């Protein structure tokens, strides 16, 4: 790898790291109870709607849940405890995102494993191509090229 290549790859890596840090950096302090309630409302399915979140639904039950979420968040209950209350009451189907534990973890884990294996496969393939010796021109090749050049 030349110095120029190393610089280019280093620049790309720095950009990726900077983007990840920027995305993960908290925009301000800890969320307020209202912000937490709203965030939870986007994760919960409105019980008497087809595919709307509690945050998006204007139904009376969605409004009741939003009030309950605000009350629980203001009382200091953790997000996980609040989710658990609703799963106990309605089942896992109340969650718009699959659970990250039990059987639901497969939904999250399988794509990651597939991507990791794909990257590993690419890495092996690149390494294999690099190990193959470059082809050297034989005298017959040299003669052929010379013949073409001289016309």
């Amino acid at each position, binding site marked *: 790898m030349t110095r120029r290549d190393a610089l280019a790859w280093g620049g790309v890596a720095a950009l990726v790291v900077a983007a990840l840090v920027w995305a993960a950096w908290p925009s301000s302090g800890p969320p307020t109870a209202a912000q937490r309630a709203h965030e939870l409302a986007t994760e919960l399915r409105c019980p008497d709607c087809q595919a709307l979140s509690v945050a998006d639904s204007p139904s009376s039950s969605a409004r009741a849940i939003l009030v309950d979420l605000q009350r629980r968040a203001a009382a200091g209950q953790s997000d996980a405890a609040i989710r658990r209350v609703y799963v106990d009451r*309605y089942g896992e189907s109340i969650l718009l995102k699959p659970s990250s534990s039990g059987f639901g973890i497969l939904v999250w884990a399988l794509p990651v494993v597939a991507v990791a294996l794909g990257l590993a496969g690419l890495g092996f393939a690149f390494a294999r191509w690099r190990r193959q010796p470059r082809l050297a021109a034989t005298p017959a090749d040299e003669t052929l090229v010379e013949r073409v050049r001289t016309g």
Partner: protein
Amino acid sequence: MRHPARWAALGVGVVVAVLAIVLATQVGTNPQAETERSQLVGKRAPTFSVHAFDGQTLSSQSLAGKPVLVNFWNSWCIPCQQELPSLLQFEQRHAGDTSFVLLGVVRDDTTDAARQYAAAEGMTWELAADPGSSLALAFGTRGQPETYAISPSGVIAGAQIGPTSVGNLETLLAAARTVR
């Protein structure tokens, strides 16, 4: 590692196989099944306190010791109107029986509309409003009508999601009487 590409291919194969098994085990599973039954059956009923149409306050504490059938309903929903004859017949069959309580809770309706409808249809059992839908939420209702049977000790003994029938109400009442 002698053949890394083969190992990578094997790994991909394993992932695909696991995915196939997951899909195969889920085939035939009705994703709506969870919405057709209550998660609360066998658990303690939520504590509540509601204002009945006749002015008295009904609470889980005041009703403790008796089986309670809680029916969520409203004046505009067609399935509620369809189950009404069953509720009327059930109430008539048990007229004068004070060993249990049938409690109708208004869900997603105005109290005035529900009162007028109840009076017009001759609904003589206990009826109560649920301002803020807190009781409907506590029972994990997904709509109306829904009926829950609570045992004298406060355990949810059974539930009917959707319109009920006289036979179903009798079954719920029997379950509520049986569960300790």
